[in-house]
């Protein structure tokens, strides 16, 4: 599945000869357009803040990477521990080991002025999460290290925080009248004006990408107006990606937003109460305005502090801020894996193959949040709720959709190969790397054989073809083992694999039931009762290791007692036409013989099914229904052996009722 279409599409099809297949080519039909998209940005999630000092800033970005550093070539990837990854969260890794040039470069990307309020993990830190199953790495950093992504995210951030007017997510889903009595009711009266335009909006165009934005405010006692403005944005170059996941993505973002707001509100109250024991008396002159400001407001000394960081605002004893960041990375993990790829069975067995790593982008600086232990600790011990919950919800989200790809069934030959033991597979020279070339060589030999027999001007060629395709025994005598094998493999192209009972290196004669294509050393005694087509090769003793039958001549020593039917089977006529046609090249011969073989095997399947019907049909009727005729009877009956056991056992005799 992973092959790249070369220059769009292959012009010279190369295929594995036997049992299939069109492999590359037809598969390209699906792949060509899909592969184009792999290089394109899928989705990025960012957390943005409108800094009171610096304006709109992207403060955390998470994006999937498909190639680095634990991507496709898993063999080069560091050896991650295999134990349950969720409990294995933190691992410090020098950047040199990570070998992530983009990441190192990325540290220099962000040239915007920042204060603590608009800084998350700084430019020296990144989070990596490797998901082995999808071979995707998620990188979280303050800003994206990819220029294209950075531009789009910045643009979306600007629009999200300063331009677009969102609509409340609650409005749509909640009855408008809130039951009173919530502890945060007084601040929310303050909020009303500020937040009425906050909320969700989807916007975008082809040039800048598409964005789903959720704008919200966190209460902060030191902020102007007691509120700070933040937003989550999901940016993708594909409109459909966001829209198809719209409601669930929004749900997750709203969830995170709610958590942050609750935490912030709690801290806000703690700070406003300043210990909380004093009564909140309002001076008479302020009474009219009392309900417009939060409790405690009049006591508080107004002390606006523009650069308070997120952890302070939401309170960091449960590390929500940090969790948020990790949640984001996990969230995007879900996003990146909306296309699930693992087989269902293996999925059930596995648990999350996700490795969390926190990587300082330089080995010396850990950034202002140098306490990586806290982050890891926060996840592994207390307070990991948000992160894990996000992981779960998004994971289930991502597992929900997958791509039922178009792919044909395995052919009968393939099923048969699977049922063969390895010895026979080797004997038939199947599954080798250059099988197509080998097949072409075999067909060249087939040509040599058929021309040799045709020259005899008798029915030798018809005999050979007839016995081959109807399962009569053909015994070949020769002096070179290679030539004997080459002879047998050449003929084997005329039959389904299931019809091949081949032994090219026998030392004594064997019954036709055991081998229909049998090779013996010259001079081996053949019993008189053996009703076989006995062919002797001359001149093959000089061939040595060569597989070519060039210059070899053939003598028919014995013909079977049965006479050739008249008319001859259609398949015989067809094969004969192909092999003696000088205008047909080996490539054409290969394609036509294969298609002819498959066609007749398909007819055999119909015969097989009709034979299994409860109704007894006349042979003639069955053959006609199979698009064959009475003259094809022997071929068809022999070819029933070409059907795999799997096919025969799975077939049900009649309709399911």
């Amino acid at each position, binding site marked *: 599945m992973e092959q790249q279409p070369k220059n769009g599409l292959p012009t010279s099809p190369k295929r594995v000869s036997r049992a299939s297949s069109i492999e590359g080519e037809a598969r390209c039909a699906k792949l060509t357009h899909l592969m184009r998209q792999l290089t394109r940005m899928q989705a990025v999630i960012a957390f943005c803040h409108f800094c009171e000092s610096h304006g709109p800033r992207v403060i955390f970005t998470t994006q999937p990477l498909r190639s680095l550093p634990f991507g496709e070539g898993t063999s080069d990837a560091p050896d991650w521990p295999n134990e349950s990854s969720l409990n294995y969260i933190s691992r410090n890794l020098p950047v040199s080991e990570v070998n992530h040039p983009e990441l190192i470069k990325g540290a220099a990307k962000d040239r915007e002025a920042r204060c603590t309020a608009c800084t998350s993990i700084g430019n020296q830190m990144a989070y990596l999460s490797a998901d082995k199953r999808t071979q995707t790495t998620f990188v979280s950093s303050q800003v994206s290290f990819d220029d294209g992504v950075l531009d789009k995210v910045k643009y979306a951030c600007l629009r999200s925080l300063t331009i677009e007017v969102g609509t409340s997510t609650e409005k749509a889903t909640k009855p408008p009248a809130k039951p009173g009595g919530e502890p945060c009711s007084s601040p929310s009266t303050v909020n009303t004006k500020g937040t009425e335009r906050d909320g969700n909006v989807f916007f975008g165009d082809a040039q800048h990408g598409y964005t789903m934005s959720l704008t919200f405010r966190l209460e902060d006692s030191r902020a102007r107006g007691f509120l700070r403005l933040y937003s989550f944005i999901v940016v993708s170059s594909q409109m459909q990606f966001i829209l198809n996941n719209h409601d669930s993505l929004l749900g997750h973002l709203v969830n995170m937003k709610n958590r942050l707001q609750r935490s912030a509100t709690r801290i806000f109250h703690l700070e406003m109460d300043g210990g909380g024991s004093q009564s909140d008396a309002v001076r008479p002159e302020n009474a009219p305005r009392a309900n417009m400001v939060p409790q405690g407001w009049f006591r508080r000394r107004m002390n606006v502090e523009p650069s308070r960081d997120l952890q302070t605002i939401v309170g960091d004893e449960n590390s929500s801020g940090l969790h948020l960041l990790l949640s984001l990375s996990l969230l995007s993990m879900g996003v990146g894996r909306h296309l699930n790829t693992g087989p269902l069975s293996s999925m059930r067995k596995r648990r999350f193959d996700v490795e969390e790593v926190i990587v300082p982008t330089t080995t010396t600086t850990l950034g202002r949040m140098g306490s990586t232990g806290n982050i890891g600790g926060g996840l592994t011990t207390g307070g990991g709720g948000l992160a894990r919950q996000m992981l779960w919800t998004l994971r289930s989200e991502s597992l929900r959709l997958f791509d039922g790809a178009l792919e044909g069934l395995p052919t009968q030959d*393939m099923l048969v190969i699977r049922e063969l033991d390895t010895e026979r597979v080797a004997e038939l020279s199947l599954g080798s790397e250059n099988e197509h070339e080998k097949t072409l060589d075999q067909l060249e030999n087939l040509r040599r054989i058929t021309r040799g027999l045709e020259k005899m001007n008798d029915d030798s060629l018809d005999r050979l073809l007839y016995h081959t395709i109807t399962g009569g025994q053909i015994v070949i005598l020769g002096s070179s083992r290679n030539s004997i094998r080459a002879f047998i493999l050449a003929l084997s192209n005329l039959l389904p694999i299931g019809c091949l009972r081949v032994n090219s290196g026998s030392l004594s004669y064997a019954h036709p039931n055991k081998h229909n294509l049998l090779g013996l050393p010259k001079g081996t005694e053949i019993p008189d009762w053996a009703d076989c087509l006995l062919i002797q090769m001359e001149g093959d003793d000089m061939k040595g290791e060569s597989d070519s039958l060039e210059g070899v001549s053939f003598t028919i020593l014995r013909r079977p007692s049965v006479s050739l039917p008249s008319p001859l089977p259609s398949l015989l006529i067809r094969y004969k036409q192909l092999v003696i046609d000088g205008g047909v090249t080996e490539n054409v011969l290969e394609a036509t013989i294969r298609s002819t073989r498959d066609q007749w095997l398909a007819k055999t399947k119909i015969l097989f099914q009709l034979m299994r019907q409860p109704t007894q049909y006349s042979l003639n009727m069955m053959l006609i229904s199979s698009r064959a005729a009475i003259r094809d009877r022997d071929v068809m009956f022999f070819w029933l052996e070409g059907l795999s056991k799997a096919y025969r056992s799975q077939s049900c005799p009649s*309709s399911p009722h």
Partner: protein
Amino acid sequence: MAKIMMRYLTLPAPKRRRTDKNNRIRNGEGKGTSHSISSTHSSHEYVDELCWMGDHRLEEPSMRLVLLAESECRVLFDSATITSTKEGEVIGARKSPDGRYQFLRRSEDTCELGQMLFGTMAATGGTASVKMHTLGDNKMLVSRVFTMPVGSCTRNDERRNDQCDSVASSCDSEYGCPLTVHSLDGLSHYVKKAASSCIPPEKFSLTRNHRRSRQSSLQTSCGGGVMDGCDPSSSSTDWDDLRALSPPHRVFSRTRRDEALPANSLQDDQNNLMGLRSRFSSMSAETEVKTVGMGVILEANERHFVLQHMPLIEGELRRLESRVQVAAAHPASFIHHIFEAWHSFSSCLCTLHNTSRLRDPVWIHLLRKPRDSFTTARFCSVLAETSAICETKQTKFFLSNVVTAILMHHMAWIASVAPPPVKMAVDGKMGEMESYGPSSLSISSLHGVNPHVAQLLEISGCVGGASRSARTVVCGSDGALISKILHCLSYFLRCTSIVHREDVTPESMHGVQYPEEESNLMHHHDSSDHSDSSIGGGSMNGDVGHVEVPSSSVTTLLASHEHQSGLGESLLAGPSYSYSPHFVLSGLLRSSESKYKSLMMISDEMSSYADSSLASARQEMCPSSPTPENVTIVADCTEWTVKVLTGDMMTELHSPSESIVQMMETFSGLHREGVSPHVLTDIMEDTLSDLLSKSIALTEILQLEGSIGRLANLNSITSERVAAVVGCDQSDLRLLLNIAAVYCPTILSSLNDSEDDGDSDV
């Protein structure tokens, strides 16, 4: 056995049917036509069983169009307040000069809508963008902001001035709507059609004051909102309030606005003057653009529909936009033009929404549930029935003919019959596989590809080298027959199936905390107080533990996505009286006398479609691919013809591929004998697979021709010779060529380079 087959037809429909009472063809989709459906009445059960319809219909009146110019509140059009007098006159409402339309009081939400459309700051770039908002009152807003070159209302024509004045004078400053209709007058310069009919006074006015025009341009792009706004004073009061109590979010935007406006002091001081100028001065406006916001308001219960069909809706919005541009060039009939455009937009959406869809399209359904006996059996009996009607000499083997056409143009089936790599078999890497029947479900190992996008591309045939966008319409007067044919075709029209895995097992959640509190992701209906739990410790404060996940929450999570099927799947429609070019497969009902009209209709729609919607969406997704060729197959089951429309060409497919005819014949014969449906489909798969391998042989032959050049014996290659070597009937060659072109695009050109006696004329 045949009787057993028949029993399927009388079984109740599958459980998924939720909308029995709605499941019948409704006539006059979208356009209110009044065709009778008597011909289908007797056979409703087929329509019911094979097609389904949503719970509710989208009606044109439930949608609303708002066109706002320059600022939040200059209404160019609002379908809620500008109505046709035909639909009933409102006393006291002003009327358009021709009396056909009336202007009601401006809607109260206009300002709010304007803010959503434009944001708080004038759009920065010239790029058109699409937006979606959820509105509070169970509505949603899909909008598009675009720019038009504009000169403000030029007073070039006394007659129009009169109108303008009369409208303006009778209109409070608060309701700017009719007035602003004329603010687009100047557009006529920039619309090609209008150029020829350019009236001298306009030219005259063009040469005037450049400086003014600059000021005016600043005004139009930035200041207009406040100036022409619904209520400047109240809006600025809002701003002030915000400034006091909220972070500088909106304040900043204001600041930015001012920064972006070097002449802002001028603007502040001279609001009125500027306003006058904007309206009454004329200018050289080549460099000037006007931002127009176009919003369509729909009921929130169309949400899923909108999300799912957004690429199509966006395409329709683009069409609407271009019609707005044209309308703006004809100020006198602006309202009328917009009315027409809006009607065509909304009826298109209605058709898209209200048309019945194929219930369980066969192929997609079988991909999802490979061993679904019911679906397979039903398909086989429907196919057998259909072929009894349409696969006769009298009908010119109509069914085979359509299937041939489908296989020639909707090419995604090719991948479905290409076997997996043999190496997998040899290496024993294949898992449990189906060994017969239609393709088993194998899971793609491609990462990062949106399955919805893939499906969309595939279903319209945009695969491989044959980059085309194909759709098929079956038309006729017998709804039941059309349904059956469509059902059958849905087996051959293939695409990736989007599988909704709903069996994620709780075992995989072991050790993952999943607080019940958060289980209801979207809808916090519970009125319990979340703050309590978080303050008091609750789930956030670290009971990391191994909280058992309530199974109900998982169910909730999954149930909410039950109906999220791909857009691709939604493009397989049932019979309808209206035609939408968005559908990949659809049926067109018509009364017998209007058959030529329907072909015209399809052809028209096709040409207008070429520059819109899916085509552009596709371009967006695969920018490197050439613009796909648009192909529409029109199968007429009253005349038994199959026509292929490509661009402005129409070719009739006179005879089917012999392979397909044989396949149908074999199928019917075996079906009569009661052969299992699984086996029957397997036989059809073999035929398709045979076509593929024959096309490979054909490729080899023709490539030989191309590569070696004109060797004597190949120079005279004829279609007889090719057919003989390939081992097929000559009638198959066209189909085989089209198949080959998918994985070997050069083959068609190499064929054209060589002699024409080959296959193109078969």
